[in-house]
């Protein structure tokens, strides 16, 4: 029996992730000397996944009211791609570190705005109403995250002596942005649990989680980053997951 389209796409996405990941491991293990191979394959993986996502999304009929919502995700993915490309431009073409804050941050910020609009659009379109237990669950998760966020990220960033005001604002924006996106996506998952659509939101939420981990790693651990930074592999995984969620959602709405 031939493999389903969905399975073939997921294997392809896995390959798109594994190639830069193995290159990163080889660089870390000193097997590869040329560090710029990593951002190169990183960009290739992103552009291929973006093309696939746009291709499948273009096949959905515009009649579906949710189409507009997913258009925001596609746009946010495009912005993320531009941001990552701008970020990798320095090491790839100039052989130097990317300045932070810099031009890529404009696109990263816009990515958050579009992703936020996507989630709000769906929450309003679906007219979500929560019962007591669901509200409790969402509140509990939000509080837990908030405590971790304030304790683990916000206070240390604010107290930091090394960061400029702008990098402090940006770091806080990214992490608070991740927090808001995770909570909003979580609200959708709680309500749509059990349906195929919920799975796509869970890929979305997982992607935002990975961005979040990447942001925390970036803010804390690898501030003195190199070209092949470990934080980037989380960003790449999240990009691929976002593209994958667009493909899966599109496949649900393409007329068979």
């Amino acid at each position, binding site marked *: 029996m031939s493999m389903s389209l969905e399975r073939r796409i997921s294997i392809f996405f896995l390959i798109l992730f594994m190639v830069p990941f193995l290159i990163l491991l080889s660089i870390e293990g000193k097997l590869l000397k040329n560090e710029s191979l990593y951002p190169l394959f990183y960009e290739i993986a992103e552009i291929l996944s973006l093309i696939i996502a746009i291709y499948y999304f273009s096949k959905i009929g515009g009649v579906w009211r949710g189409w507009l919502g997913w258009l925001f995700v596609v746009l946010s993915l495009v912005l993320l791609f531009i941001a990552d490309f701008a970020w990798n431009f320095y090491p790839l073409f100039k052989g130097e570190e990317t300045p932070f804050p810099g031009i890529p941050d404009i696109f990263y910020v816009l990515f958050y705005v579009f992703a936020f609009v996507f989630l709000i659009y769906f929450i309003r379109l*679906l*007219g979500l*109403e929560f019962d007591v237990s669901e509200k409790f669950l969402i509140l509990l998760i939000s509080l837990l995250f908030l405590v971790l966020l304030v304790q683990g990220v916000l206070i240390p960033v604010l107290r930091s002596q090394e960061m400029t005001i702008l990098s402090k604002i940006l770091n806080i924006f990214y992490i608070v942005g991740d927090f808001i996106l995770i909570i909003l996506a979580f609200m959708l998952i709680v*309500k*749509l*649990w*059990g*349906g*195929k*659509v919920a799975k796509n939101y869970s890929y979305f939420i997982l992607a935002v989680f990975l961005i979040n981990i990447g942001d925390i790693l970036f803010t804390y651990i690898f501030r003195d980053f190199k070209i092949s930074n470990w934080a980037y592999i989380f960003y790449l995984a999240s990009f691929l997951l976002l593209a994958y969620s667009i493909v899966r959602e599109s496949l649900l709405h393409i007329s068979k």
Partner: protein
Amino acid sequence: MKFPLGQEIYKRTPVYLINLKELISWFRLERFNGVLVEEVSNVNTQVLVYDGIIPKAFTERNGEILAEDSNAIEIFVNDYLARNGFLSLFSYDKELIPPLLILYFSTPNIFREESYLFIPERLIEDSKKENSISHILIENSEDKVHFLFYDGKFKGYYSEKDGIIKEDISFLSELFNKSDSFISFYQISCGEFHKLNIPSLKFSFIEEEITKWVEKLLEYVNFIMRYYESHGMYIENTNKILDGLNILCSSLVCLDNKFIIKKEIMGSYEEVEGEIVEVIRRINRELSDLWGEKFVHQKYIQGYKKFIEEYKNDKKIIELLDEINLENIEF
């Protein structure tokens, strides 16, 4: 009796014991062949049913025809509604009806000629030609006797006095010898019979009602579909919703996510009701697969409540929804 009596299903049953709506729907569904007789004192109405449709009906009083076709059905329905009289139902072998019908819907080869002018054996021989449908009518001052042939086979004869079907063909010669007998002979080929324009009479109030009833329920189904759509939930392939349904699959069509009646509903209330419920179930199941059962259930109930609110002045639909208990549908 204008039509023979056939095999008895029930006889002289008080009309109030019979659900006429269900009976007519059952005729349609089962493609019933036979005759339904209503008797009110000395007036009787005979309704011929052929393959589920009603091509001919008569109301008679002591052999005198009072009304025919739609008028006869109107008398039938009025007496039924007045809970007057008795109903009898007889079934036929399907092949018995075409020779009956050609008497009304084809031109005769011989029309009311004196019988002594003809040789009965030749007529029988003619009637036994393969692929032909024949009807020999012999009438005299006292009675009318019909001899019926289908595809060259003798199917029996009956007299209008008692309506009982008999199979002794030699009786034909006996009738020919009577002095005041007149003969009519009708014959057409089986192919021509299928080209005849045989009407389908309607039990007006009942059949309009079942269609109106389905229309009302579809109003609800379409409202729910629109409600789902307005919340970003829609079904990609609506055609499969009707797949395999006995009645609605051939009677409904879905255009732009809206169900409409494309042809006459041929089914019993109970079955149509069951299938409407199944349609809603399938819609909900299809959406649950995408959006999760819990969410679809919540939206369904919201849609139901919104519908009740908007249609609160339409008592008929509210009663219908209540009757079918659409609020608590499981899927």
